[in-house]
């Protein structure tokens, strides 16, 4: 009885260690910039498919998608970051992420230009994003890491998509 629990515990510890020291990130491209998300949060990667628009939502919420019976919202990350928007091509992919919000775990998708690579990053190699004041929003960025000659911005998935939740709720509450 107790053994699987112990094993699970060890796993958790291992995961924790991996998080601390040597984490893997899925990197993707967005308007010639490189971003990364914790690979353990990625549920699946799928091609761009037509979504159902949801009325009265911000423009970066492209709509909802039927993901095997679950209704999953899809966000356009270019629009979210105020980058120039682009036509969706056959390379355009949706990364489906698990987000830990206040109300539990949610599944959300982000639209990115293309998936590039899996990156091993040591926590010691992480640099904090420089502070631009209010000019550039950096609160979603968990850290910066170098991959070759490129800089990869690692995103904090919970802050990016979970916080969005909150601010929207505030908006709806305010009106």
């Amino acid at each position, binding site marked *: 009885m107790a053994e699987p629990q112990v094993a699970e515990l060890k796993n958790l510890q291992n995961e924790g260690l991996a998080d601390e020291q040597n984490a893997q990130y899925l990197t993707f491209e967005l308007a010639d910039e490189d971003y990364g998300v914790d690979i353990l949060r990625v549920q699946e990667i799928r091609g761009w498919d037509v979504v159902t628009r949801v*009325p*009265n939502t911000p423009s970066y919420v492209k*709509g909802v*998608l039927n993901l095997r019976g679950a209704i999953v*919202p899809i966000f356009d990350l270019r629009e979210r970051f105020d980058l120039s928007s682009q036509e969706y091509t056959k390379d355009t992919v949706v990364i489906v992420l698990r987000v830990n919000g206040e109300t539990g775990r949610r599944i959300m998708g982000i639209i990115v230009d293309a998936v590039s690579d899996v990156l091993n990053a040591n926590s010691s190699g992480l640099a904090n994003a420089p502070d631009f004041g209010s000019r550039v929003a950096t609160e979603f960025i968990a850290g910066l890491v170098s991959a070759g000659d490129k800089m990869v911005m690692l995103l904090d998935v919970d802050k990016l998509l979970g916080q969005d939740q909150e601010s929207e709720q505030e*908006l709806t509450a305010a*009106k």
Partner: protein
Amino acid sequence: MTIDMAQFHQVFFDESFEGLDIMESGLLEMDPGSADPEQINSIFRAAHSIKGGSGTFGFTNIADFTHVMETLLDEMRDGRRQVTTEAVNVLLASVDVLREMLTATSEDAEVDPERVKAQKAELDRILAGETAAAEVAEPDNAEEAPAANKQTGWHITFRPHSHMMRTGNDPLRLVRELQGLGELTVEVDVESLPPLSEYEPEDSYLSWDLHLMGDVSKEQIDDIFDWVEDDCDLLIDPICPAQKAPPVASEITSKPEPKAEIKSVPAPTERRVGTDRRASGQKGSAKKTASSGGTSSIRVDISKIDVLINMVGELVITQSMLGMLGDEFDISQIERLREGLAQLERHTREMQESVMQIRMLPISFTFSRFPRLVHDLSTKMGKQIELKMTGETTEVDKTVIEKIGDPLVHLVRNSLDHGIEMPEDRVAAGKPETGTVELNAYHRGGNIIIEIKDDGKGLDKDRLLDKAIERGLVPPDAMLGDQQIYELIFTAGFSTAEEVSDVSGRGVGMDVVRRNINELGGNIEIHSEAGVGSSFIIRLPLTLAILDGQTVSVGSETYIVPLVSIIESIQVKENMVNMLAGKGETFKLREEYLPIVRLHEVLGVKDAKAKELNEGLLVVVEGEGRRCGLFVDDLLGQQQVVIKSLEANYRKISGLSGATILGDGSVALILDIPGLIRMAGNVSVAFNQAPRKSA
């Protein structure tokens, strides 16, 4: 061998609550004076199992309390005691107390010991009264009593049969319980113990000689051995020592004592019951909200599961048939493929239906509380009311069962309090003295209809209108139709009761009733005729997971309007449309002016085909008593849709109640009609916020 007993607690509580329901309904059906012994028996059995179970799990306070009830019931069963209205009422109140105790125990909460004590005293009082009567009526009994008093203890020979432990009974527990009754000397007889090599660990080989000293009645001992009677040889002999006169004398004098002690108690008890019941009601509702977050279980008729298993079997067969077909498919087999797919479709649909069936429970779960309610309230109000219930077996979704209870209670209370007149008024009005309240449930066209009908005085239109004007809810010169006047009672803070009674008239409630019903996707209608009676008709969807929807198109988008809220769809002609202050569009539908909500504007659809009103269609919908016309491009079709939550992964969107997946796999959004009507009230707000949010 130690077992974690806690794992069985839930089952015990479930069964006990069922037992309580049986007791309650049995007691209500019992005719004072001429009770059916079989009925008393079933009540007794229910009490007995609760007592046994609570004893086993160590809930001694429940066991003790139930014991007293059981004693009373036992005497009724044996015919030693007349079934009086008073006794039945005390038993009913005891059922309430017991329910509270069980609820409290299941939540690890404290029970008010005073209340339990008071109720127990009440029971004892009834019992004591009966003892006196029995002594007069049955001399045998009276003789037995002093005989029992003479002896100072019992000699019990207890020889369990070898299989006793396998029936789940532990002799040790019995001995321990005996110990609780008095001074116990135990002698073990190990004679039949076999050599270790032949020893069966699950058999019991021991037997006991027990000497129990103290003032213990034979019934008490019998009770302990009740469960094992058939699994052991049991001899219980009184021990009568030479002479012990003094204690006997004191015992006899102490006999009437409880009576005296109790006499002072009933008065406060009565009062307590009134106040406490309300407190317990609140507790009950608080508990409900707490437990709704946790896991809840459902009891499913085994036949429903059998049907489901059969269906899965069929599905597997179809699947393997299609699999074989696919392995070496050639075009000549197209007919068989079609056949197989049709079969698959049929099975899938049947299976969906039977899975839905699992969530369906008969509405008697909700109705069962009403006989008690009517019984209690009519006594309290001095009215004579007969409750007629039909269609208790109508099955509805479990969530509906859980949520419809309170609104129904409210409506029934209202009918009793405001609807049915006092007996003398009824006679004066030429009606039978006894008023009738009818509860009726049935299916009609994919809906569940629940009717609450009374033959009372009906709603007083003039009073309603006066009150509404007085409260400033309607302008003094308003011309309202009957239906609109009745609708007023659903307004928050509205009550016409001249006096706020304990039962109803606080004016909180009817608005909540309607809100609850709307939350379930249903609606409520009132019909009333002065002097003849009124009826409330609640219409609910069959299930909450599936909704009958009308798909409508707006531009390239498809939305679903719940069929239940659609009244009709019409094509508007220009002469029907009027502008209010140059902005608000209204149209006239049979003497009523209804606002037009252009769906493409509210939902921000850019490619709507119909810009002019005569190009599209108006779907007349109703939500929360307000009507409006939704302007859409076209109606597509009606279909049943499975409701999916938008909140699960995203958030609540105003104007939408959920989403569903259409046949082609795409997502369609389900419109929230009351929400839309509210939004349409401030369309400009909805518009302004869109750019602000995207900024």
